[in-house]
């Protein structure tokens, strides 16, 4: 697919509660709807936010995904997860 396909999946997960609940319960079933490659699906399903940033996904969405699924109390874990990322762009 493309970074845009990843962003569409993340946008739906972060802004639509029904998609988010389904993603938490059955991530593969949700991610198969977006025409993503197996690697891209595994990146999202595995909450690999550092890799998402590396391929150019908006940090608004990687952060939003983490906050929606893990909650704001997990901010330190998010920062730890992306600590090796060199991404600086919007």
């Amino acid at each position, binding site marked *: 697919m493309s970074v*845009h396909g990843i*962003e*569409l999946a993340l*946008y*739906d997960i*972060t*802004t639509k509660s029904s998609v988010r609940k389904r993603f938490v319960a059955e991530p593969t079933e949700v991610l198969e709807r977006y025409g993503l490659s197996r690697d891209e699906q595994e990146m999202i399903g595995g909450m690999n936010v550092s890799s998402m*940033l590396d391929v150019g996904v*908006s*940090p*608004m*969405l*990687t*952060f*939003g995904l983490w906050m929606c699924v893990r909650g*704001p*109390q997990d*901010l330190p874990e*998010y*920062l730890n997860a*992306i*600590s*090796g*990322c*060199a*991404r*600086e*762009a*919007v």
Partner: protein
Amino acid sequence: MANVVGGFLMSHDPLVFINPRKVDSSVVLAAYDTILERVRQLDATTAVIIGADHYILFGPNCLPQMAIGIGDVQGPIDPLPGVERGGIKGNPSLAQHIMRVGHEEGFDWAAAKSINVDHSVGIPVRRSLPSDGSVATIPVYLAAGVQPLIRTQRAYDLGGSIRRAIEAYPGDERVVVIGSGGLSHWVGLPQMGRINKAFDKLILDAVERGEPEALINLTDDYILEHGGNGAMEIRQLLCAMGAVRGAGKVIAYEPWDGGVTGLGFAELCVAS
């Protein structure tokens, strides 16, 4: 004739309200209250609030450069402790007038006939406008969080169009314009949590001098390096400065360690 009677700049960090580290936020909350009191003193009837989308309202299927709420308004869509949610009194007549004038002047507004605002508009509404609904809200969104971003000059010029539209409106509206955007902050990036006080001072000094050019001329690369991706929201500040035109006075600045943003609050003087 309607008039712009005041202007304000403010930050909208959600962490001030979530406050996961339980840090004293009283100075920040007091700044919102100070603006609320000034809005009351100015006897405002409508607030044009210029916010930034955070990939919450607009998705990859459509990312407007500039959008205005011309009908029903509610929010904020993202729940925050201490920030009321629900219906927000709008001003569809004036909003549609601003849109029409903009279209005539070459500003291609996207129109939101029904909008559930995010925290960038919701926090100013709920914390700095009277809760009795005596001040209506016109939500405006400028692309500052998701590429492609609106150019800084364009954001400033759009503020001028908003001002001209308000002054051509055949009513007695007393309008305040609020630019809702952060100073230095890195959203979702490894530098998240860094606050650059020198960058924040550069921004607020330009506001106090009434020199929008100093902000317009900052390149995106410079802003990214020194202020982070969140500081792209100087576009929201510039739009308000373009509408109000006068120099500013800083109400409060807090590099608050309970959050991730340099928090700035200022009042803009109305210039003719």
